[in-house]
Structure formats: C-alpha cells, structure tokens
C-alpha cells in the first residue's frame, strides 16, 4: 500500500524513466476502463506491462513467479513499483485535477491487484496497513439472531449464510456497497460479506493516497528548489499531452478524400508532431486554447475537410465539456472565420513551419508551436516513440534538435518513420508531412497488393518498419540552408 517512501539514490534519468513507465501503465488502465474492457483483459494487459516495464504493478506472487525470474529481479520489480509510485505522487500532487486523475488510476490499478485475492489476505492487509479489524458476526449476536435473513439476502447458497462470513462496517466506510444496495444496513452498520471486503480496502487505499497527495503538496515548495526536478515533475504531470500508443485504429478505406472519421488513424501515423500533440490534447482534454485551435484548425482545413466537417470535429470534442449553446457562441465564429466566412472573409492558409516556429512560447495549457522547439527532451522522446522510433533513431533526431535545427529534426523523423519514402517538402510545411505520409502508406499498401502478400495490414504500419531499411542518404545540406 505504498507506506514506506523509498530511500534509494537514483539518477535523474532513472527517476524520470520509472515514472514514465508507471504512467504508461496508468494511462493504459484509464484507456481500457474508459473503453469498458473486460476486467480479465485489463488484468492480462497490465501483467504484460508489468514485465515490459520491469515494475511490479502486479505484485501477485503467482504472477511474478510465472515470469520465471530471479529473486533479485523480483526484488527490483517491487522496488521499482514503490519508487515509481512515490515519484508520480509528487508529480501529481500539484492540483485537484491532477490528484483526481492519479487517484482514479491508482485505485483502478489497486483493484486489479486485489482481483483474485483471498479474503484472509484482504483482512490481513486491512489490519496491518490500516489498523482496522472489523467485528465479525457471531451466531450469538442479537443482531444476527434478528436479521440473519436480511443480512444474508444476497447469499443464495445456504452454505454461505453463516455468521463468520459477515463483518460489521460503519456505512460511511462502505459507501460503494451502500450505493449499489449490495449490503444490508441496520442503524448505520453495513453487514458486509467477507468477499466484498476488497471494496472496503480499496476505499481505504483511495482515502489514504488522497490524503498523502495533499500532504505531499505541502512539501512542494521544498521539492521544487531543484529546478531540474521541478521541470521534470511538471513534465510528468502532463499526462494528456503524451501519446501513449493506446489508440488502435483500423486503416481508413480507400479514396482520396480525407474523412472526419479517418482523422484518428491519420493522427497516429501521418500528423507531424506539432499537430499530433495538439490533436492528442484535444482528444484528451476536449479543449484547446486560441493558438492551438488556429494551428490545428487550419491544418485540418488543409487536409481538405469542409467547413461543416471541421465544425463537427470541434463540436464533438468541445461539447464533451460544454453545452452546444456555449460552443456556438464562443467558438462557432472562430471556425467560420478560419474558413473565411466571417470578419474580413480572408481565406486563411494553413501555417507553414516558419510561421509555427515564430509563435510565442506556449503558456500554461497551451500546446501550439513546434514540439522540436517547445518540448523538453523527455516529452519529445515520448512523442518520437509514438512514431515507432527506436532509441538509436531518436538520437539522430534529438541531435538535430540540439543544434536547433528544428525543421531538419522533423524531416529526420519523417525519414526514419517512413523508410524509403518520398519526402516532398517535409520539414517546411506540416501539410507536406501529412500528404507525403499518406502517399507513402498508399504506396506500401499497393506494393503489398502487387506482390500478393497476405500479411495483416498491421505489419506495414508506418514506424514499426525495421531500422535496417532506413535510407542513409543525408539530406542535411539542402535542409540546413532553409
């Protein structure tokens, strides 16, 4: 239950990596829960991630031993679990919204862990970790004698209707069971079946982490004395700006016109980072500030979407947080304006790279601009990995960025994620990145068809292509002159 904060000494790099790894797991959990996936499926996924990230987010002994690893490794997994939890706690203590997100996901994770636990274990945890031992019903109790049928109303099997199967819990500590009417209540006491104790423990866990988050925030001024840590924590807390490879989309059906419903697919493979970041934030937060709307809005217009489609696009997202009226009033004009239907009726062109690079530095909750310029390295790595870049490839791109060659970095990204692809004006215009990428995907599909390869289409997904096939022709010369 994450009681003991870690005292390990770790490098900053490790610090960040562990936290990001945990966030990947939490984000995945969020996504799968929102998609209403089956508990068992979620658990299996999380088990896989446990292994991949070397974090014992599933600490179950049986699960860990199934990985056939050494005692040392097991210990490492557990330590990582603890460290990463505490780092994230720091990163997510800053405000109510962050705390709520973190708490929800951690509680979900906790529940996944407890899914198959025996009630003896739960009772043990309650006692050891929370200092709580609820009174177990006795045959001789007066309330049992009077209410035994009510107490056991949900237990259809006679063998389950024994007093030792029920504990007495103040109703305030069993609120989720109360609101589901899953327990019998009398005079403020909930008679909880032992197998439902998981819910109670989970509520305690939640309450505890919640309190700890508030407590952690009190030390925030102390923590951020080190500017590097501050920056890192703030980056880590920006969970909605990081794409976690979780949206799995089918390739759009053929046809030259880009359809609204295809955007999710294209956003993953063919949006340049400056648009992908905005798109991801929009999908996560259902809102973008002015310059973000402008940058993404004109780009989408450049894809050939009609004004009506663009309108639907923004409305779909924004109206998750506001009613139609407010949207029409505050943002309708904006969209029509972009399409030259309002104000001075100018037909605005999608921004090119230069224009995007000239934008003011994004403030709080702003995500416009060129990520190669505005992102710090770690979020940028996250971004690059979402295009399927391997660490070595990333270095190539990051190196360019370090030289402040933002547009070249973008071109490198394109080349590395579209092996042997034609890059027409990529690095000068976001829409060029998009058009080239879409053309590339089509060509790949066509070739495959010609050769009669029946491999599933996921194999040709851009970005997952092997590194060896990357063309090594440097194009720096031309690009550097821009």
């Amino acid at each position: 239950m994450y009681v003991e904060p870690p005292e390990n000494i770790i490098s900053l790099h490790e610090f960040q990596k562990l936290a990001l790894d945990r966030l990947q797991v939490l984000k995945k959990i969020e996504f799968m829960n929102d998609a209403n996936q089956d508990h068992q499926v979620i658990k299996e996924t999380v088990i896989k991630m446990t292994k991949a990230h070397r974090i014992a987010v599933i600490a179950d002994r049986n699960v860990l031993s199934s990985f056939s690893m050494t005692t040392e490794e097991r210990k490492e997994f557990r330590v990582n679990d603890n460290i990463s939890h505490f780092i994230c706690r720091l990163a997510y203590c800053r405000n109510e919204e962050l705390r709520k997100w973190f708490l929800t996901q951690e509680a979900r994770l906790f529940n996944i862990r407890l899914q198959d636990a025996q009630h003896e274990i739960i009772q043990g945890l309650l006692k050891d970790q929370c200092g709580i031992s609820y009174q177990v019903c006795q045959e001789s109790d007066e309330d049992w004698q009077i209410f035994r049928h009510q107490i056991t109303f949900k237990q259809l099997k006679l063998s389950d209707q024994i007093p030792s199967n029920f504990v007495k819990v103040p109703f305030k500590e069993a609120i989720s069971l109360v609101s589901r009417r899953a327990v019998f209540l009398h005079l403020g006491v909930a008679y909880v079946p032992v197998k439902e104790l998981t819910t109670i423990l989970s509520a305690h866990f939640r309450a505890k982490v919640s309190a700890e988050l508030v407590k952690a925030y009190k030390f925030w001024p102390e923590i951020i004395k080190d500017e590097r840590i501050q920056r890192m924590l703030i980056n880590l807390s920006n969970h909605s700006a990081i794409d976690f490879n979780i949206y799995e989309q089918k390739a759009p059906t053929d046809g030259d016109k880009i359809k609204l419903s295809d955007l999710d697919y294209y956003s993953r493979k063919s949006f340049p980072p400056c648009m992908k970041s905005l798109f991801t934030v929009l999908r996560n937060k259902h809102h973008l500030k002015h310059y973000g709307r402008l940058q993404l809005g004109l780009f989408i217009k450049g894809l050939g979407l009609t004004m009506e489609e663009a309108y639907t696009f923004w409305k779909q997202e924004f109206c998750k947080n506001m009613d139609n009226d407010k949207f029409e009033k505050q943002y309708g004009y904006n969209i029509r304006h972009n399409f030259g239907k309002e104000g001075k009726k100018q037909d605005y062109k999608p921004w090119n790279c230069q224009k995007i690079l000239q934008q003011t530095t994004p403030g709080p909750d702003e995500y416009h601009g060129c990520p190669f310029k505005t992102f710090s390295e770690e979020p940028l790595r996250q971004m690059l990995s979402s295009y399927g870049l391997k660490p070595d490839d990333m270095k190539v791109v990051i190196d360019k960025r370090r030289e402040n060659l933002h547009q070249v970095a973008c071109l490198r990204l394109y080349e590395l994620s579209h092996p042997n692809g034609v890059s027409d004006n990529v690095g000068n215009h976001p829409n060029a990145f998009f058009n080239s990428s879409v053309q590339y995907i089509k060509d790949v599909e066509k070739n495959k068809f010609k050769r009669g390869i029946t491999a599933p289409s996921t194999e040709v997904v851009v970005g997952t292509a092997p590194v060896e096939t990357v063309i090594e022709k440097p194009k720096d010369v031309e690009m550097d002159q821009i």
Partner: protein
Amino acid sequence: MDESDPQTQVRSSEMIQDLEFTVELLKIYYDKAFPYDKMFDWLSYFKVSKKQNRLQSLEDGVDSEYFYNREFSFTLENDVYCRYLCFKNPTDLKDALVSRTPHKIDIGAIFNIPPKNHLITEKKVFIPLEKEMVFDIDMTDYDNVRTCCTGAKVCKKCWAYMACATQVINNVLTQDFGFSSLLWVFSGRRGIHCWIGDESARQMTNEMRSAVTEYLFLATGNEMGGGFDLGYPLHPMHQRAYKFLSKRFEQIVIIDQDLLAHEAHQKKFLKLLPQNVANELQSRMNRAQTSQEKWKLYKDTLDKLHASGKTASQKHDPIMIKLVFTYLYPRIDANVSKGINHLLKSPFCIHPKTGKVCVPFDPMTVDNFDIQNVTTLSKVINDIGNSKDGSIPCLKESLAVFQTFLNKLKADSQNELKKYKEKEQSTDF
C-alpha cells in the same frame, strides 16, 4: 428548489382567493411571528461561543461561530437573489429579515469562515464544511400518476403520495442509517423537505451523501416506464417498503386516483404481463365498467399466473412489486441530496404564491396532515392582532414539532459534551 413557472402562478392565484401576501404583512410576520430563538437553537446546534472567547473575538456579538459561518440566502421581491449572507445572532437575523423582507429564505452550508467574507479570501480557502443532509420531494414528479390535480395544485388525494414517501424515507433513514434527528417540513405549496440534523449526517462528504441518496433512489418516475431495476433478490429495505406500500396501493392508485380508468395506465399495467395473457385480459378489462372491476380482473389474472407455476414459488410477486414501486415508491430529487453545498428553503418561510407557512410536521402522523388547511400568513397576522401575550395559536402545533426536534438535538449535544469531557479527563491522567 424553485417551484414557480408562469403557468402555475396564474392557476394558484385563482385557487387561493383569500391570499393576502403583501410585503407589509410579511414584515409584521418577520417582526412578530418568525421563531428566531428556535431557529438559532437549531442552526447553532447548541455550540455557543463562550463568554471569554466572545470578548477576544474580532467581531462583537457573535453568539455562535457555527451559526455565524452558516450561509443564508434571500430571494427578494422581483427575484433578486442574495447569496452568502450570515448572521451573528438571532437579533442580527431578525434585523435583516424585517428590513429586507425576503420572499424566500434558503439555508446553505457551514463554511470555514463567515460566508460574507468569501470575496476577501481566495476561492480555494472558502470551503463548505458541514450541512444537514436534506431530501426534497416535489409533487410535480408525481404528475404522471395523479389525476386529481396537476402542476402546483394539491389536494388530500395527492398528498397520499407524499405521505407514502415520507414514511418510507423516514423509516430507511432511521432504521438503516441510524439517524435520529429528522425534521420534516412542508415546503409551502406542493412538496416536502427533510433535514437530517445528526452530527454524523452533517459531517458527511459529498460521496457519502451520494451513497445514501443512491441507496434510496429508484428511477420510478421516468416517463418511459419500467426503466428501473430492483435487482434480485429484493433488498431487505425494498422488502420493507413493499410490505408497507402494497397495503396502500389499492386505496390510493385504484380507488382514489382511479388510474385504471385511464387507458395509458391500463396499458402500463398490462405491459407487465406476458403478451398472450395481456391481450386476453385487455379485452375483458375494456368491457368492465369501473376501475375496481378492472382491478379485480387484473388481480385474478395475477393469482392464476401464480398458481400456474413459474412465479408460484416466490414469496413476492414480481409483477405486483413492479406496480407498487412504479406508483408509490418515493420520487426524490436526487441532486438536492448529493451536494453539501446545496441550499434548501428554510422552515417557517411563507410561500409567496400560496401564503402558506412552511411548517414542520410529524412524520408519524403525516397521513393526517391537512394540506388544504395549513396555516397561512393571513391567519398568523389575524392571530397576532387578537393576541394579548404575543402567542400565536395557529403556529402552536408546528412549533411544538420543531421543539421536539430541538430537544433531541440538545440532548445529543449534551451527551456529546459529556463524552468529550470524560475523554479529556481520562487523557489527563
């Protein structure tokens, strides 16, 4: 909370001819009749500031911090709404009521600071700490099951629905949750409010309030019908409610409201039966003369279904259960109950549209509550005119109900104090 819409306003003013609701009369009511001391006793919960504390306190005249930090809001004439008001003591409250003569007074939460200072401090540090848990039941939610009246109108027959709701909720709150200090108030026109004064209720978080609300709430009033699921096996609380409500079903739904005379309701009844049974029964029911005959046919069919198998082994008949819950189970306004920060109209307000006083009533005798003869503003004014010692006979009964509630609170607070002192002593040594 707000019960006014233009249509009903017209109707209700036609209905009540002897209505005399004027600002002048209201002023006299606030000056002579409003029970300030009792209201203070209630809302201070006997947590009175000690003398020496009062001298030190920055603001003079604060009799109880607990009372002072409570939000009041006034609705003035012309619907001007003033929030975040607070008062130091009964006199302070009286001065405000007499001088501003609000048409409606709402009571909100107890904050960490006096609510009037909410603009001085940062938004983050203005926090609602406690409030009674409240329930609000409005007759309009029963419009699709009452034929006697609609909208703002109420009569003895529709009050029967309220009486059912009161008794079921009262029972659940006391038996299941163990709350003991409940104040039931008629809301002045067509609804009822319930305030749970227990300290443990006042201290509940929004999550806990939601849980209690969800426990009680069933979406029975939904127009689409049949949209609620009771779950199986029936929860003990529902079993109790069913036992209580089923006894009243025939009188209220079949006889008083005569709902089977309406095709829509007959359809609803039939829809619960298997298709072939329903078809056959429908033609027979259509031939029947009175609702009671129809009901007899329906009941006989249920009995036959019972005897013929599937449902026979079950203690309660699921079809009958569904009917009873659809028509008689309490229809609460869930949102009012879930939030600590939700305001609710104060007892002893005068409803501007009816002139009726929002009087507390005893849930045990709710069946006898005479909704058409509730004390009105003009009756109170009349009593004031005739009174030599300042007593107001027409409010006596409701004040007595209120006092019973206060006595309970006082006893609780003394017990609490005793416990606290004992604890302090035991830790001293």
